[in-house]
């Protein structure tokens, strides 16, 4: 995602320097107020850390590896102002010293990764983590997703900058002077790589490091956790208060499930083999398929497999209940209960494996 020299016009580079400058100024002022004399060593060391961590090859599912930027990690540990300065510093040194990113494009790279990336990461993390305790698994998920969304947001902004070049800067013959690809090519080309490899690398790094810090040094996560967050989960008011709205919402949804009965007909594509021989059902299928009549006989595969499994509660209506709304609500409760049971079981299994993993570490060290 590091934009080299030559891909963006001087006007775009200047605009992005101008766009980044107020963020640098505000971040510097804010950090001077909060860190005072600690500003220089804290930001410098974190920038050095960001530089080094960008070089880590992160193994990804599927056997490939990817590099992360670490913008979400910086935003979670230092806050957005610290992250903006630390990532910008690392990017400037990368551009000057290692040619990773152009010198004229420093403003663009800092704007995309250090500013957009850090701010998006911070907002996503705070929204998803809520008031969960510092050692809550929810924070690990929030951190991973913050990393994933942040790097994709940064990639999208970069792609838009690329895509605007051929619209705005052409030579006398009509040839694009800088990045030649329009938005229709630049956006998918950038996003495919970031939605898959780079996004997952950022997710793995951010989530993994936050999980590690929860076990070893949770205080490092406290600065951006928000006010009133309990350090340790358990019977804390914050923990139960955080989940209560979710339970209330789930209860309301369960009570409202009979509303589904108001919707007539079947969902498109969820037909039964018998519907193909019923005249009324055939009309309904044709009406739902833009007038396309269904085949005269049911598809052979559908006919063959439709009797393989019979659901215990067919059509959300238990056979022993005469009232359709009660049966519908009962089916919803039964389904939700099964999902909660399965997730609780998986979570318990993961906790056991995590404890075993921690024991392995102790042995290997």
């Amino acid at each position: 995602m590091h934009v080299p020299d030559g891909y963006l016009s001087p006007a775009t580079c200047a605009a992005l320097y101008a766009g980044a400058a107020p963020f640098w100024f505000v971040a510097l002022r804010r950090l001077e107020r909060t860190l005072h004399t600690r500003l220089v060593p804290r930001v410098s060391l974190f920038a050095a850390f960001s530089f080094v961590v960008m070089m880590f090859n992160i193994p990804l599912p599927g056997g490939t590896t990817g590099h992360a930027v670490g913008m979400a990690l910086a935003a979670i540990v230092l806050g957005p102002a610290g992250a903006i300065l630390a990532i910008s510093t690392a990017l400037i040194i990368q551009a000057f010293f290692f040619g990773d990113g152009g010198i004229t494009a420093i403003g663009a790279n800092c704007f995309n990764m250090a500013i957009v990336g850090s701010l998006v990461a911070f907002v996503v993390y705070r929204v998803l983590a809520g008031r969960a305790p510092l050692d809550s698994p929810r924070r690990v998920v929030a951190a991973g997703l913050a990393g994933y969304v942040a790097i994709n947001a940064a990639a999208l902004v970069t792609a838009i900058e690329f895509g605007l070049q051929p619209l705005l800067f052409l030579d006398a013959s009509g040839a694009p002077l800088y990045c030649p690809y329009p938005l229709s090519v630049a956006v998918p080309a950038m996003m495919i790589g970031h939605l898959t490899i780079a996004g997952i690398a950022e997710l793995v790094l951010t989530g993994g490091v936050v999980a590690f810090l929860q076990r070893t040094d949770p205080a490092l996560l406290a600065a951006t956790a928000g006010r009133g967050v309990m350090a340790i989960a358990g019977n804390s008011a914050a923990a139960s208060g955080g989940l209560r709205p979710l339970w209330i919402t789930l209860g309301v949804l369960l009570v409202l499930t009979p509303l589904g009965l108001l919707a007539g007909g079947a969902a498109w594509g969820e037909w039964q083999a018998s519907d193909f021989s019923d005249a009324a059902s055939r009309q309904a299928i044709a009406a739902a398929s833009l007038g396309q009549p269904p085949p005269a006989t049911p598809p052979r595969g559908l006919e063959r497999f439709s009797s393989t499994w019979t659901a215990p509660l067919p059509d959300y209506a238990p056979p022993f209940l005469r009232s359709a709304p009660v049966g519908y609500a009962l089916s919803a409760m039964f389904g939700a209960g099964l999902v909660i049971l399965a997730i609780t079981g998986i979570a318990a299994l993961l906790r056991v494996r995590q404890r075993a993993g921690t024991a392995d570490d102790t042995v290997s060290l």
Partner: protein
Amino acid sequence: MSGNVRPRGGFAERTVNGLLEAMERAMLAETNAAGTGWLQRLDPRVKLAGLLSLVTAVAMSHRAEVIAALFGVGIAIAIASRLPLSTLLSGVSLATVAFSSALALPAIFLTPGRTVGTVPVVGWTITAQGLTTAGYLVLRVAATTTLGFLLVFSTRWAHVLKALRAFRVPVVFVVILGMTYRYILLLLEAARDMFDARRSRTVGPLAGRERRRLVTQGAGVLLAKSLHLSGEVFLAMQARGFRGEVYLLDDFVMARTDWIALASCAGVALAAVWAGR
């Protein structure tokens, strides 16, 4: 050296090799900056201003031949400064240019314009505008990368930072950049040692989940080390009287050759912008 060939092993080997290359690159730059070539003798402020003006001229030029001429100027300066041209071209510029060429290739077929040929078998049409835009991209990347590395390979990092003050970069930012660079080298070494130590205790291939855990734990340890170190550095700075204000020794003096070099770079850059408009 970046030119050395190391076996491409697993992710840990690749990470260690990447870290080693970064350290060696930094040391190579410092060694070359201590040389006695034409560029090394110039005032760092002149080099910074002069080379940045040439980079800007490359970015502003609308003609491929002008960009190619500026690339030639960069090569000529590298030769005059006895910089390792082979390292510059093979290890640095070539990799960047190869990457940009791969990116520019589809533009030859995708850019609408006057058809100048067709690729046999697949039937893709090549347009004049496509060839021109691909040429712009590759030439610009080659020229700017070479000019950028002329600065780094001929100037100590501490001097580059001090020269930034001439451009009104806030002093606190200059100090952060300087301290970051210093601790990058330390953390690169710490990360390399960490991966080496773990590698030496690992027998057989690790499962994907274990490999991810190894990397994230490594990053976590490095993060904790960095923040711990920042506390220690802060205490050391306080012990030496640091109270939040930063002063730099500004002892650069412009000689006649510096003024001539500055005027030459500015003249070439202005001529290139005029010719390439």
